[in-house]
């Protein structure tokens, strides 16, 4: 994929092949996928045959031939729209193909290399610095920095290591340093890059549920208008006249919903493409549609609602202990702590009291790292043992030193105050003395509150998922404005929450990266897996975010909604157009039988021929005019359904009635000026 290069909407480089594509798509097998345009092609063929027959019979076919040309142009414009939409994906796929690995692979314990194409899932290969990773897999040994720009477009290398949630590597990416052993997980042809190519190219494009329903509606409307037009000849015969077949064809084609019929697949492809350009891969169009329907968003607290790291903001000394002593002990205990929380304690002590680590003591320092068992870290300076950690862990530690230790009430109070405020309390002890509490605070991202308010207006409920205790979770939930929270979340609790929401008829979106997120990702209607995540997570979700940015979930919902809105708006526009077309064609059609009907010619079109020709020309040109809108999508602002509906009904409903009156009149003026009819 071209890294971060934004191809313009109607790039000439994409338009030229699309013209060729428009003709290729005249293949009946391709046309048959789109019922409305297939019908137009059939009647265009019929009209062509009739016109040739009339020409052979020596009749003047000037008017007829023009109509035939515009009928075919209607079909070609529709094909062109689809080809343009596909164009960008095709270009991306070509880039991806070039980067796809033709690399050799070295199986563990073997010296000779085999082609990557011969790898089977379960094989273990060795990859060293400078080599391409031959296929998708999990690192089982080693750590390496990997350049993933081939798929993410991001040139900064990422760290991949065995174990944990960052073990997945993607075929076609390049190892920049070190040596890793990878267990292959994907068979050739179904690797991530293969799937990406298929997706952006649209080769696997299947109609989405809404698209199918809309196609049925359009086919049904087409049938209704078949009835409306095929009955006209006998009505005309009753009135003692006749209507030429070509005019009936023109009326029919202008009445059936050609505008939306022509643009429907382009809208769908463009929607997927918008996601791709947003560096999100949707595994199916269904997932994009589901994103628009989402009722509940499950958002991980860390990284989405709060900045990734908690920050120390205050030292709260116990009664009888000084703040400086507390700060000093806390800093000492954090010196070896490489976690962002630990570093923020060092920084806070430095800022508040000008303490610098190296000024402290000459005794031998022995650092005690944090472990999941002790839930503490600290430092031993000679015989002096300083510890910091979760309150109960530190209490337990002090009690082990001094069996009749009792927790000071003020410390207990400080711990609970910090927790209630949404912070994380760390208790610091020096030997058997409890010095006080460090207040670690979750920093809520700026602007997140407004985003949640916006989502609420759109009718979307946000739920914060956090491992914190309920007290802390409640405080952060209140501060960030999230609607609800799931505290002390386990994978099971997450899954249960999704099931509960779904049982109420809601659609749920979430993102996740760890293997233990996989069941929930699979259960959610929209599951966005982080690209940094494990293979299991990436398999379980129906979208992959190449940037691994959990905040994107909100934008993904927006893109899904925009896709549906574009479809709805253009459908409304297309159907509303029919009013003007009737007023153009009906008086012209019956001009010979009932000249009185010219009263209905409200646009004052020049002649019956120019009226019919103008209607069919307008009908074809409006497709071209709307291609940019179909590809870009209608303007989307997060508002309530009622205000979105008001706006779109005005623009596309009322506009759809009015615009063709003006457009057909304008075409008519040109047609007559040029002397076409």
């Amino acid at each position, binding site marked *: 994929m071209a890294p971060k290069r934004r191809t313009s909407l109607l790039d000439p480089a994409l338009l030229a092949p699309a013209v060729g594509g428009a003709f290729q798509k005249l293949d009946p097998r391709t046309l048959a996928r789109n019922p409305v345009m297939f019908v137009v092609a059939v009647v265009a063929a019929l009209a062509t045959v009739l016109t040739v027959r009339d020409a052979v019979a020596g009749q003047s076919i000037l008017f007829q031939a023009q109509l035939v040309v515009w009928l075919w142009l209607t079909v070609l414009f529709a094909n062109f729209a689809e080809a343009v939409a596909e164009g960008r994906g095709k270009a991306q796929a070509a880039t991806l193909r070039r980067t796809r690995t033709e690399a050799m692979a070295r199986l563990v314990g073997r010296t000779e290399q085999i082609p990557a194409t011969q790898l089977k899932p379960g094989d273990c290969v060795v990859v060293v610095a400078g080599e391409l990773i031959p296929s998708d897999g999990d690192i089982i040994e080693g750590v390496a920095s990997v350049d993933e720009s081939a798929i993410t477009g991001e040139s900064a290398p990422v760290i991949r290591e065995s174990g944990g949630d960052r073990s997945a590597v993607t075929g076609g990416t390049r190892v920049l340093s070190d040596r890793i052993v990878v267990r292959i997980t994907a068979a050739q042809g179904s690797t991530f890059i293969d799937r990406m190519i298929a997706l952006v190219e649209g080769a696997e494009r299947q109609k989405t*549920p*809404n698209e199918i*329903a*809309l196609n*049925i*509606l359009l*086919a*049904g*409307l087409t049938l*209704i*208008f078949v*009835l*409306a037009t095929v*009955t006209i000849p*006998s*009505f005309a*015969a*009753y*009135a003692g006249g006749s209507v030429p077949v070509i005019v009936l064809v023109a*009326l029919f084609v202008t009445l059936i919903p050609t505008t939306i019929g022509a643009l429907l697949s382009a809208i769908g492809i463009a929607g997927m493409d918008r996601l791709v350009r947003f560096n999100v891969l949707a595994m199916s169009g269904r997932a994009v549609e589901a994103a*628009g*329907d989402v*009722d509940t968003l499950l958002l991980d607290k860390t990284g989405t609602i709060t900045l990734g790291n908690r920050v120390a903001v205050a030292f709260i000394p116990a009664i009888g202990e000084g703040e400086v002593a507390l700060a000093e002990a806390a800093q000492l205990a954090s010196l070896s702590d490489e976690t962002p929380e630990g570093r923020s304690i060092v920084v806070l002590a430095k800022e508040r009291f000008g303490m610098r680590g190296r000024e402290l003591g000459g005794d031998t320092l022995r650092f005690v790292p944090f472990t999941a068992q002790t839930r503490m870290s600290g430092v031993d300076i000679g015989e002096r043992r300083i510890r910091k950690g979760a309150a109960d862990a530190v209490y337990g530690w002090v009690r082990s030193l001094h069996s009749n230790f009792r927790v000071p009430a003020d410390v207990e109070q400080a711990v609970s105050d910090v927790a209630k405020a949404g912070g994380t309390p760390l208790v610091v002890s020096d030997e058997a003395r409890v010095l006080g509490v460090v207040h670690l605070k979750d920093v809520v991202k700026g602007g997140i509150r407004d985003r949640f308010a916006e989502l*609420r*207006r*759109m*009718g*979307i*409920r946000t739920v914060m998922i956090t491992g914190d205790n309920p007290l802390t979770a409640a405080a952060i939930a209140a501060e960030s404005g999230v609607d609800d929270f799931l505290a002390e979340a386990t994978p099971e609790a997450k899954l249960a929450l999704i099931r509960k929401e779904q049982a*109420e*008829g*809601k659609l749920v979106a979430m993102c996740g990266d760890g293997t233990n997120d996989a069941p929930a990702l699979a259960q959610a209607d929209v599951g966005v897996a982080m690209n940094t995540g494990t293979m299991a997570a990436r398999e379980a979700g129906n979208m992959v975010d190449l940037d691994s940015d959990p905040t994107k979930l909100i934008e993904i919902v927006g893109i*899904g*909604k925009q896709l*549906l*809105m574009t479809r*709805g708006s253009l*459908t*409304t526009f297309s*159907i*509303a157009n*029919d*009013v003007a077309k*009737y007023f153009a064609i*009906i008086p012209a*059609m*019956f001009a010979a039988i*009932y000249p*009185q*009907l010219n009263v*209905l010619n409200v646009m004052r079109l020049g002649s019956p021929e120019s009226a019919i020709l103008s209607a069919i020309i307008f009908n074809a040109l409006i497709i071209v005019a709307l291609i940019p809108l179909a590809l870009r999508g209608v303007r989307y602002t997060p508002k*309530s*359904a*009622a205000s*979105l*509906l008001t706006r*779109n*009904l005005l623009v*596309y*409903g009322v506009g759809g009635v009015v615009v063709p009156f003006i457009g057909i009149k304008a075409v008519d003026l040109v047609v007559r000026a040029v002397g076409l009819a």
Partner: protein
Amino acid sequence: MTINGWLQIALFAVLIVLVTRPLGAWMHAVFEGKRRFLGILETGIYRLAGIDERREQHWTAYAAGMLLFSAVSIVALYLLQRFQASLPLNPMGLGNNSVDNSFNTAVSFVTNTNWQSYTPETTMSYLTQMVGLTVQNFASAAVGIALAIALARGFTRRQSGTIGNFWVDLVRGTLYVLLPLSIVAALLFVWQGVPQNFSAYVDATTLEGATQQIAQGPVASQEAIKMLGTNGGGFFNTNSAHPYENPTPLSNLVQMVLIFCLGAGLTNTFGRMVGDQRQGWAILGAMAALWLGGVALAYSAESAGNPAFAQFSVDQSAGNMEGKEVRFGIAASALFATVTTDASCGAVNAFHDSFTPLGGMVPLINMMLGEIIVGGVGAGLYGMLLFVVIAIFIAGLMVGRTPEYVGKKIEAREVKMTILAILCLPLAMLGFTAIASVIEPGLAGLANAGPHGFTEMLYAYTSGAANNGSAFAGLSANTPWYNYSIGIAMLIGRFLVILPMLAIAGSLAAKKIVPASSGTFPTHGMLFVVLLVGTILIVGGLTFFPALALGPIVEHLAMQAGTLY
């Protein structure tokens, strides 16, 4: 147009709004099984018929029950007409009805159409009228209500496999809704002077000294259900223009209210069933807008009269009184014509054939839209809900969600079934008109030439397919061609709409209910009403625009230019 005329129209509207809530609440309670004041009778019927009232049906079983009931009704009614000469209650000794007309009439009354191509007082015995036609007036109406309730259940049920029990709905609708109201209405009509007897026809001597035979019969009882059940089949040929059927302006008003009351009430029942009465009011609001447009056009066209009369120094200040009863006048006739075709009643108190072209176009359009403006009892609501599905699907995507209505997602299956249902009306209306307008048996029945004759044919098939039954008159429809073809149009218009509709009910019932949020498409306000009306006019109206242009529209333009047909 006069203030007095508009006041009559306004009074009618107010009365309908007033009865909507109580009737809606009543029917809601009846179909929830909470009102069973004839419980012994009801359970007796179930026991007799072997119905387990607690056993609910899948939509296919519900549809099978409805089809079976209708088929048996058609056969029974056919046989009754074919053998009436040998049966009792036939004081005038009327003979057996013809094969083609018996078929047409049997289909007509079972499909709630009540198209009558015969003259009742010289064709049907009292027994046929009472045991055959009046029974079907109840039954076909009860079937309609049952179907609407079944569809409403589709919207309200949550992941359910069933949509109610057809037989139970049929019995409850008849016992607790149609019968009590009919009895009250019949008594009202008797008070207003409508006869209710089994007497032989009376010979009277007119002022000119001629002898006139005046038909008698159990008129009031049939009149009540004729209106209440939106049947419209008159006891007499001239229907509600006959002084025995509709003697006074008060009886006229009561008749119109009876036509609309159950249809309007059902919108409220629907609202109550889905747990938000505003949903019902929004639907009624869309109906009201279309009704008002129709009345305004018909009333103004009829008030304007015929400009061609100016040269004959005929006073046209009262408007076009041709074919109207003086006791009703322009406003009440135009209103009646609109109301009877808004609903699928088809009773007439004036002759639509004599209306001005635009005045006559209003009933035509009302029926072409599928009689969804209040509509036939039940049929109006389910017909309107089909248009709601279309409107929601076209515009619903514009809010960026899969379209949903009262919590149910509208997906491919619902769209497919709705299209099937909506498609069969233009198929029958336009298709048969197209055939009739080029074949000899079709053209033979016309009384007028040109666009007016065309409108007569179009009206007949439209009325049949829409299950209205009102006649434009002018067309001699009691011929084998028209009896059979209109009969088929009626069957298409009834059952080919019902089957897909029940399929929708079934598939909706099986779905989850999505809780409403501010992201949900709002379907209870003005915006939705506007959208719904727009969709109905564009999708429903545009289908028929060419036919209308060649019929009433061109006739109107010709009339303005002084040419009459």
